[in-house]
Structure formats: structure tokens, C-alpha cells
């Protein structure tokens, strides 16, 4: 039964293949070398078998006849040449032996275009049929050979049986690899060391030097905060969003600006030259309110020469005024 099925399929295949050739590639088979074409056919056959099988499984309800009929009907509509060919195929589905005869008839009957492909088909069937037989035989032979090899007992060795001939060579190579790895590792370590150069992990405890640095930094922060406090306590209670207060602040900043102009520029001293706290430092130097200053009305050369340098005295007055206004808040 299986054989019959196979043959039938092959018949179907033949028909299908022919159909394809007719439609698309009329000249292609001629150009193609026979072995290649043959191979292609073989592959096609396998695939088609598979597809067929799947299709059968898919619609298992339908009987085979139905399927065959459907297929047969397709070429009749599309193909004029194979009209009689289909008739001849009907018996071939039942009997495998008539296949060859049919082929021969086909060979004679079809036109030149078809002849070549027909030839291929014939060859194909001829090769495959004994090929399967050979394959089954080959499987047995292979099985025997494989079993032979597997059953062979070999000496237990680290290097294994296959490399036994080159045992010494392999040992040398392994040793060499080992040495190479060692040198590589060393180089890597060296590189790592170079990459880590200068990288130190700090100690868990507080080193005196670090303590000193922290104290220096703290001093700087304290100085800044005090300066900020001094500057901002003056304008405390004034809300910049309120226009009146904003005006007041503006006035003060203006006054402060003029006072800055009047003063000599600040020169950085040795420790903690902090530019940011500059203004605060200047304010540190003398009390804001003029009468509280040590040298008020005493050493000021400006007062002595009040009639000589009118410009400067004006600016001084502005400065005084600013300091007065700021001291009011305090």
C-alpha cells in the first residue's frame, strides 16, 4: 500500500513539475546542466512529499481520491498540451509498473520543449528508487562500523586516544601555553599596577593632616557664613517683593556700591584668600557706623582738606550716608 501511495505521489509530482515548467521556464531547463536540474528535482520532490503529507494530515477527513481529482482538474484548465497525458495518468496511479510505459509514451508524444524535463523525470525516478535501497544497506554497514569503533577498548589517558601519536608534541604545547599564560598574567598585573598608580584608599581613622585640612575648610566656611550673616541681617525684615522694601534695598545696594568705589581695592592676604567673602571682609575691618570707628574725625585727611578736594568729599559723604543707613537697622 505504501508503495502505491508513493508512486501515486510521484506521478502527481511529475505532473505538477511539468506544469510549472510549461508556465514559467520554457527555456530554462535547456540551459541548465542536467545534474543540477536533477538535484533540484530531487529536492523539490522531498519538499512536495512533505507538503503533501502535511496537507493530508491537515484535511484527513477528505479521502485521497478527492484530492487527486482536484489536482487533476487544475492542469486541464490551464494546460492544452497535457490534455491526453492526464488520461494516461489515471492508470499509473493504480499501478506502479505502468509508470515507465507512460514515461516512454510521454517522451515520444510531448514536444521538444517538454522533452528535456521529461528526461530528467525519468532519470530521477530511476536513481531514487535504487538509492533508497542502497541507503538502507548503508545504514546497516555504518551501524556495524560505528558499533565496532564504540566497542573498542582504549587506554585511559589524559590526552585521549586520538592524540596518542602526538603525545610529546601536545605536552610541549601545553607547557608552552602555560608559560605564555603566566607571562600574559604578569603583563596584565603590571598594567593594572600602572593603571592604579597614584590611587590610594584613605584610612578609616582621621589622619592629623586631614584634620588640619578640615579645620582650615571649617574656618573658611565660618568666615563666609559670618560675612553673610552680617550682610543679610542688615536687610532683615525687608521683603524684596514689596515695592517699598525693594526701594530701600535698592538704595542700600547703591550706597554700598558707592562705598565700594571709594575704598581701596582689596588685596589678598596669605591665608584664606577668599574672593567670595571679599565684601564681608572689608566690612569686618571697621564698624559700620562712622562715629564708632577708631579714627573718626581724628586722622581723616579729608576733613582737613575739605576745601581742597570737593569731589572726593562728596563721595565720602555718600559713603557715610550709606553706612549710617545700614547701621540704623542694627
Amino acid at each position, binding site marked *: 500500500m505504501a508503495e502505491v501511495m508513493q508512486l501515486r505521489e510521484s506521478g502527481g509530482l511529475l505532473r505538477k513539475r511539468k506544469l510549472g515548467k510549461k508556465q514559467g521556464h520554457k527555456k530554462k531547463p535547456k540551459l541548465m546542466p542536467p545534474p543540477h536540474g536533477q538535484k533540484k528535482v530531487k529536492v523539490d520532490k522531498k519538499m512536495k512529499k512533505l507538503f503533501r503529507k502535511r496537507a493530508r494530515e491537515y484535511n484527513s477527513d477528505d479521502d485521497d481520491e478527492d484530492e487527486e481529482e482536484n489536482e487533476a482538474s487544475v492542469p486541464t484548465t490551464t494546460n492544452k498540451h497535457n490534455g491526453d497525458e492526464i488520461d494516461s495518468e489515471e492508470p499509473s496511479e493504480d499501478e506502479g509498473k505502468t509508470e515507465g510505459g507512460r514515461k516512454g509514451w510521454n517522451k515520444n508524444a510531448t514536444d521538444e520543449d517538454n522533452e528535456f524535463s521529461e528526461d530528467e523525470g525519468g532519470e530521477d525516478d530511476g536513481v531514487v528508487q535504487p538509492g533508497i535501497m542502497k541507503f538502507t544497506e548503508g545504514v546497516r554497514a555504518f551501524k556495524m562500523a560505528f558499533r565496532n569503533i564504540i566497542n573498542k577498548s582504549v587506554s585511559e589517558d589524559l590526552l585521549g586516544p586520538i592524540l596518542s601519536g602526538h603525545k610529546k608534541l601536545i605536552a610541549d604545547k601545553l607547557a608552552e601555553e602555560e608559560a605564555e599564560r603566566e607571562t600574559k598574567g604578569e603583563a596584565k598585573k603590571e598594567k593594572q599596577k600602572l593603571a592604579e598608580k*597614584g*590611587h590610594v584608599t584613605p584610612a578609616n581613622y582621621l589622619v592629623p593632616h586631614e584634620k588640619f585640612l578640615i579645620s582650615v575648610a571649617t574656618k573658611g566656611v565660618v568666615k563666609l557664613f559670618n*560675612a553673610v550673616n552680617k*550682610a543679610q541681617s542688615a536687610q532683615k525684615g525687608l521683603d524684596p517683593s514689596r515695592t517699598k522694601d525693594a526701594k530701600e534695598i535698592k538704595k542700600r545696594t547703591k550706597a554700598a556700591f558707592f562705598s565700594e568705589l571709594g575704598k581701596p581695592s582689596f588685596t*589678598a592676604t596669605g591665608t584664606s584668600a577668599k574672593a567670595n567673602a571679599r*565684601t564681608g571682609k572689608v566690612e569686618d575691618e571697621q564698624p559700620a557706623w562712622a562715629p564708632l570707628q577708631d579714627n573718626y574725625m581724628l586722622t581723616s585727611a579729608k576733613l582737613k582738606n575739605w576745601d581742597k578736594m570737593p569731589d572726593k568729599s562728596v563721595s565720602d559723604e555718600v559713603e557715610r550716608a550709606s553706612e549710617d543707613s545700614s547701621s540704623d537697622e542694627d
Partner: protein
Amino acid sequence: MRKKKHGEFRRPFVVKTNTNTKQQPHLASVDPITGKKIPKSFVFSRGKIPGPLKQLQMDLRKLMLPYTALSLKEKRRNNLKDFLNVAGPMGVTHFLILSKTATAAYLRVATTPQGPTLTFKINEYSLAADVAKSQLHPRCPKDLFTKSALIVLSGFVSGDLPLKLTTNMFQNIFPTIDVKTVKLSSCQRIVLLNYNKDTKQIDFRHYSIRLQPIGVSRRIRKFVQNHQVPDLRNLQDVSDFVTKAGYGSESEADEEAATVTLSSDIGRVNRASMKSAVKLQEIGPRMTLQLVKVEKGLCSGEVLFSEYGKPGDKGKHDDEDNEMQDNEDEDDSEGSEDQDGNGSEVDEDEGHEELD
């Protein structure tokens, strides 16, 4: 009718958001209150640098926050000109360039686009992670890096040209503070540069600032800070919680020097017109720098100062650089402190990056 009204409602809102979100970055090049230009920086590396240095680069970027490109991507084929081209439109004023040679790592601090460039040799460095690892309780509040750090320079005696340049450079690398308008709560971090006259090395440290009220026991301070129900199991009375003194663990000795009176409230515990103690905790990274070269241009140009070569030498730049490298090689071999060696070995430096 309704639509129109809606549109009218929406319009000012949209404009407002625009001014708030989109124009802020543009305006950010100028301080909104003082009107001063805010310095911005790029921290990047030249040449191939090893992993720890990459980490250091990241730490430096965090240190320079918020006015820096935290995730600045650089490729090997980017040269200095590329960065310079980007720096112009972005308003970047300073470059911090890390590089690595066989002898040591180097940090170049430069102002764009004209220079000068200060080249520091990093004798030693520790990463922020290392510092945090060494501490029992590393401190990192959420808003620590939202405001720029303060800078304190110490021990820089004025008069010497390279030192003057260094102070100037580092003062200008951070935004200036207006004493009258600054909010103390925005002062969260401080960068300390301490110059050691004897070793000619600069200690670079990065601390976080913490303020604690004085005269309040630790328990109460913690209670106010954390808002958690305290453990009263071992106490006889609630009053014990207030009156009982805690451990005398806090070092009260040097606190007088580190106390400030605040002008405004900071946080929940530090009220205005109350004494507060300033406590610093290191964040890292820490570096020990040594000024080796000052160039007039941006990583090029006339060499104003060189630790090893003659400052007046106006040879070709590359030669100068090589000489510097050689001297460093020698210096390294004989010990890190002394730098009088005027080595003349002609030795091709291997890991040095291209400078232009």
C-alpha cells in the same frame, strides 16, 4: 465663546511655562540676582585613561555640578577643537582635562577659549567611593549636588605668578557668591585647596557642610530632625528624655571656632539667631596636585612656568612637553618630593596624548 475664553486662559500659562523651563538654561549663563556670568565647565579626558581615572573624572563632574555636563560623551577621535567648538555656544568657560602617562595622571585646568592652561600632576588621588567606604556613615543628602560648591583657597601666598594664576583660576571656576543675597541653605559643599609651601603640593578636598544647633542634646536634635517616636523604654519619666544628657561623644573643644549665627533658618533644626556648629564631612574625591606647567594658550602656546624646565624657554611646544615628561620620569625614579632634576635623557614618552 467658551473656546475663546479657554484660549485666553491658556495663553499666559503657556508663556509662563516657557519662561520658567525653557529660558532658564539660556539665562543660566548669568546669575539672575547678581547679574554675574556663571562659569561653566567641561570635565573630560584626553587619550586613554584607566578605570579608576574614569571614575575620578565622574567624581570631578559631580563636584562641578550643577554647571557642568554630567554625561558628556567623548570619543577618541574628538580633539580639543571639537570641545572648543561646543564650548562657545554653550557658554562653557573652563575645561578640566584628565590625562594619563606612564609616570602619573595629569589634570589640566584651562579657561576657554584663550587659556591659560595649568597642568597639575596628580600625585595621589582617592575616589569619592573610596572616601565613602572609609567612613562609618557616609553622608549624601538628596540636594547635595543641586547647588554649586564654595571654594576655599588656603596657603596661597600672593606674589608668585603661578600661584596667583592658580588662585585666580580656581576662584573663577565656581560661581561667585554675593554675600548680601546668597541663601545659606544653598551652601552645601565646599572645595578646599590647601597649598603646602614646603612640598609645593596642593591638597584638593571636597566636603559637605552640615549645620547643627548648639546647646541642644543629641536626642532632642535627632527627635526634631527625624520626627520619629523616640524609644522611652528605659526612662522613668518623659522629662528624663529632655534632661538626661546623652553621651559626651561630641568633641566640644574646637566647637567655639566653628560656630556661626545664622541669619535665616536652615532646615528644621537650625533656626535663625541661634548658634550653630559647622561640621564638615568629606565627600571626595581627594587629590594631591602639583603644579608642573603653565601655558599661555589653551593647552598650547608660550610656557609661562614649568616646574622642571626653564620658564623662559620658548622652544617648540612638543619639545617642551617631552622635556617635561623626561624630567618627570627622572623625578619619579628618585622620589616624588624633589624636583630639581634637569634630566636630558631623550626618551619618547609613550602614553602622552596629542595636545591640539
